[in-house]
């Protein structure tokens, strides 16, 4: 009887948990549902509503150079460049930090972790001032350099943790065979930490793709703006917004990062390891 009672209680608990989670899921789903439904509705307004006759007209309306392709290409160049720079610098920096001991290793890593926590938003005013003085304002490479730097501390930290997981035995074998340090890093260590490098790369790219404030401050010319800022000017002029088209563009702009996230989540078994990686 006691066992049966416990089984029954388990079932009751499961149903209660399911009900509570479904309520939360509904609350999280509503804004997303609005996005999906509005993108198919040429008369979309601000409320969730099933479109009378669903069409892809909104998508074809924004499918132009000016609205979609130029900003997306700008995002790709800006964030792709910054990601490449971040990952290369992070791999190089992680190697000595992971492999050699020195009195400076610990302070360096603590400084990196400390920097990870700083509110980057606060640095934007002086960065703007600095960029005006050295003439980097409104340049894509200048913005990419700053974006890469802002993402670098966390990338170094993650990369070092992944590199610590690669055993040293194979590396020592390569040393005795007379391989130089760059050769060992390139031929032995990196291939063994492939998944780690992929995760850092994708994660960095996702963070940069969504970053609004940095390009909003540092880029001025409309033809250089990435999608994160162009979408803002698009709905910034309230009044005459065509919500359906804005929703369609939002979907086009968000799709790459959603897909990339699925890739990391699979590599890490549900994405929970990233939570573990920042646990400290």
């Amino acid at each position, binding site marked *: 009887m006691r066992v049966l009672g416990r089984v029954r209680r388990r079932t009751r608990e499961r149903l209660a*948990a*399911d009900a509570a*989670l479904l309520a*939360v899921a509904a609350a*999280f*789903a*509503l*804004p997303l549902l*609005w*996005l999906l439904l*509005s993108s198919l509705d040429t008369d979309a307004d*601000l409320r*969730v509503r099933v479109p009378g006759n669903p069409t892809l007209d909104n998508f074809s309306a924004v499918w132009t150079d000016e609205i979609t392709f130029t900003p997306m290409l700008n995002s790709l160049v800006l964030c792709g460049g910054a990601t490449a720079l971040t990952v*290369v610098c992070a791999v*190089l*920096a992680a190697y*000595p930090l992971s492999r050699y001991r*020195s009195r400076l290793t610990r302070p*360096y890593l*603590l400084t990196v*972790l*400390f920097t990870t*926590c*700083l*509110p*980057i*938003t*606060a*640095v934007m*005013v*002086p*960065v*703007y*001032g600095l960029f005006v003085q050295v003439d980097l304002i409104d340049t894509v490479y200048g913005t990419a350099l700053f974006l890469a*730097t*802002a993402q*670098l501390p966390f990338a*170094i930290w993650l990369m070092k943790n992944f590199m610590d997981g690669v055993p040293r035995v194979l590396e020592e074998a390569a040393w005795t065979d007379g391989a130089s340090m760059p050769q060992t*890093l390139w031929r032995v260590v990196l291939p063994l930490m492939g998944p780690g490098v992929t995760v850092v790369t994708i994660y960095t790219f996702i963070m940069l*793709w*969504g970053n*609004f*404030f940095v390009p*909003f401050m540092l880029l001025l010319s409309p033809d250089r703006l990435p*999608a994160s800022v162009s*979408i*803002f000017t698009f*709905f910034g002029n309230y009044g005459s917004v065509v*919500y359906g088209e804005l929703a369609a563009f*939002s979907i086009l*702009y*968000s799709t790459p*990062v*959603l897909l990339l996230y699925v890739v990391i989540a699979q590599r890490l078994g549900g*994405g*929970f390891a990233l*939570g573990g990686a*920042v*646990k*400290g």
Partner: protein
Amino acid sequence: MLRWLPLAPATLLLLVFLAGPIGYCVYIAFTDMQLTGSSGTGFVGFDNFRRAFADPGFRNAVWLTVVFTVVSSILGQNTLGLALAALMRRASRPVRTLTGTLVIAAWVLPEIVAAFLLYAFFRREGTLNAVLDWLHLPTQNWLFGLPILAVSFANVWRGTAFSMLIYSAALAEIPQEITEAAEVDGASGPRRLWHITLPMIRRSIGTNLMLNTLQTLSVFGLIWAMTRGGPGRRSQTLPVFMYDQAFLKSLIGYGTAVALLLLLVGALFSVVYLRLMKVEV
């Protein structure tokens, strides 16, 4: 010495583009630099800070930042994240997957898209009021009447996934036998939570609170896109105030002083975090 050479590119970038601006920040905060105007920049000592503490706009921004952080990060993301993680351990698999996917999707979505979605959700003619109306509950013009609450909820919608992931990992590490033993001894759910689960995950709670708070302190795009800090100044948190003063009012020196204060609060939290967590490197 040569083997430390690979550290050079990263260190150079960090010094030039991060340490540099922070140092420059400290310098400008003590000047009366303005964006426009021919008057040269002069050294004004602590004037900017004295002015900040006497400025009702600044005090308003501090207060709203506290409200925003407490409501959205400490009460919202942190508590909801823990509740979701705990409920997911009891729920059936499809419900768990569905909820997890939706919460994480809200997190992965670019900041401006999230802001735009929630702007639509909270507008007077938006979905939230439609739902409230349907349930025969009183409706509100959220973005006008309770803007700080609307942006706080927006931040909960957007940021809860992080806490959920951290707490899921933490709860998975609690040995099954301990909770089962307590259950057999007849400890009720709330008591198990209070006396066993919470003490066992206290490190994760500390980490999560700290990281959430720091994250929330620097939120700009979400608020700017939803309300522009308005109406009036009723959702103007410190980052929005800083932007307003430095760029819209062209008071670079004053705006930077505010930025420096924000940075100091962040630095303080970071140090506490590093100490509390006794990070092993």
